[in-house]
């Protein structure tokens, strides 16, 4: 709104000096640039500059490039990197399988209530909010929580299981958050699949497995790959879930970074760890965009 009004004096001023200026259907470059300026400045200051500063600080402050040596030679950080990558890979697999299963159900079902249920399942994590989701899992997985009491009553276990503060808890909580993103990435390609092709494959004698593997999977491959990349890149930066459900026992890179800043006041090492995290995420995304194109990746975001 703001820059709409700033345009008026500019054009009025021009009108008085050159009255015979030909009418043009495109916006003048100057006005356009003025209107983009606030967004441009915001991006420069708070998207690009933080990345540059992070990298610059990581190689100039503290031990200089030695920050990376310090980060990578610390057993705790190496273990955190391992945990983060492994758990994120598991989350990626679970979220993409689940997201695809739900997207495929939505594509093939004719029942209205099933469609509504699938949409509810996919949207609930957004409605619950970041912290509440993890709180729900903390309650479900607690020692006296419903999962343990159910297993005890059925007689599958004699002692309550320690489910909280484990990698399982973190993976479950993160999958809950990431499954909707996988669904959104896969759904555009799933909804393009022509169901007649399935009948054709079945009619020619293909088994269910063969139909899905030979017809459906190749068609939805770009969506699957985009989903994997989006889930993995976002998962490795997770902070809330590892802290609440993993605790001190299963630190993620994010946990170690925040400890470095707020507990050990070792900002340079935190910057080095952050750069490592960013490089992994951006490499994943760059490779994926190269493989399936920007459209497939962007399609999964909105």
């Amino acid at each position, binding site marked *: 709104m703001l820059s709409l009004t700033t345009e008026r004096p500019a054009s009025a001023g021009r009108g008085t000096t050159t009255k015979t200026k030909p009418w043009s259907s495109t916006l003048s470059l100057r006005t356009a640039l003025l209107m983009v300026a606030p967004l441009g400045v915001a991006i420069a200051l708070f*998207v690009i500059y933080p990345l540059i500063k992070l990298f610059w600080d990581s190689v100039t402050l503290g031990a200089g490039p030695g920050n990376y040596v310090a980060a990578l030679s610390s057993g705790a950080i190496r273990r955190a990197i391992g945990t983060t990558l492994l758990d994120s890979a598991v989350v990626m697999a679970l979220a993409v399988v689940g997201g695809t299963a739900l997207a495929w159900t939505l594509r093939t079902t004719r029942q209205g209530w099933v469609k509504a249920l699938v949409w509810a399942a996919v949207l609930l994590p957004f409605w619950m909010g970041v912290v509440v989701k993890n709180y729900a899992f903390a309650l479900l997985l607690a020692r006296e929580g419903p999962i343990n009491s159910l297993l005890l009553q059925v007689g599958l276990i004699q002692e309550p299981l320690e489910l909280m503060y484990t990698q399982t808890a973190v993976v479950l909580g993160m999958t809950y958050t990431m499954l909707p993103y996988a669904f959104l990435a896969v759904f555009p390609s799933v909804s393009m699949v022509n169901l007649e092709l399935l009948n054709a494959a079945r009619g020619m004698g293909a088994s269910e497995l063969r139909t899905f593997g030979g017809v459906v999977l190749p068609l939805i491959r770009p969506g699957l790959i985009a989903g994997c990349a989006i889930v993995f890149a*976002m998962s490795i930066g997770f902070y809330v879930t590892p802290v609440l459900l993993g605790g001190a026992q299963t630190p993620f890179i994010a946990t170690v970074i925040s400890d470095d800043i707020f507990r050990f006041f070792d900002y340079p090492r935190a910057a080095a760890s952050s750069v490592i995290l960013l490089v992994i*995420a951006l490499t994943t995304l760059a490779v994926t965009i190269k493989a399936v194109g920007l459209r497939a990746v962007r399609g999964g975001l*909105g």
Partner: protein
Amino acid sequence: MTATTGASKLLDALARLVGRTVVVAFLGFMVLPAVFIGVLSFSNDPYIMFPPQSWGTDRYVEVVTSSTWIRPITLSLEVAAATAVVTLAVVVPAMFALKRGRVPGTMAVESAGIAPMLFPVAAYAVGMYAVFAEFGLLGTFAGIVVAHTVHAVPLVIILLSTAMDQIRPELELAAMTMGASRLRAWAGITVRLLLPAILAAAIFAFVLSFDEAVFITFLGGPGLVTLPKYIFDSVQFGVDPAITAVATLLMVVTAGLMLGATVLRGRSR
């Protein structure tokens, strides 16, 4: 021959059964935690018990009456409202210029605006922490609004960009050939057609900010405690059962807002 078709039929049935089980398992996995929180919120037990021993609305009464919850909720509402306004003020003019002008590097601006969505949040928060320390924004209201705006910009760009692609510039041109100024053509035609999408974008920006928990932890300092930060802290240091009531209220309100935004977004198509 009959043996193989029999076996393959059995295999088909098995594949279908496994597929169905996977779908049901994932549906349950996604739906049950929300139901569980909702059920627990209507219990009057002094601490969380499952199954609940008593029923009632004590937890809701506590949330509404005790001041401990009101303060973080108020701060969150203020930050979210400011974020929605600032985000629109920054993105809407830029989208008009990018879509209607010939700005060099349009794709680059859009991509750079969307990029933060894909940054690992913890690493990005450290970068923001360094920049905020330099600019003196740590622990300030303005700083949090800036951080949340950057957090909301990607989705708002995506929403408005797709919405604007559906509005034909010929409509504006027609108005301008008939003597309307560009400003009038925009305000009278494009903004009016875009209004549902703009409202939807405002709602999404509001919800994203209201729900944000990582930037506030890194950048908010001890003084600024929004609702997600408050819940985050109380879950870490012992569990207040009233959280179940807050969580249920949040779920219902957010669901309503987001469904409303989705309907609005659909209307602008």
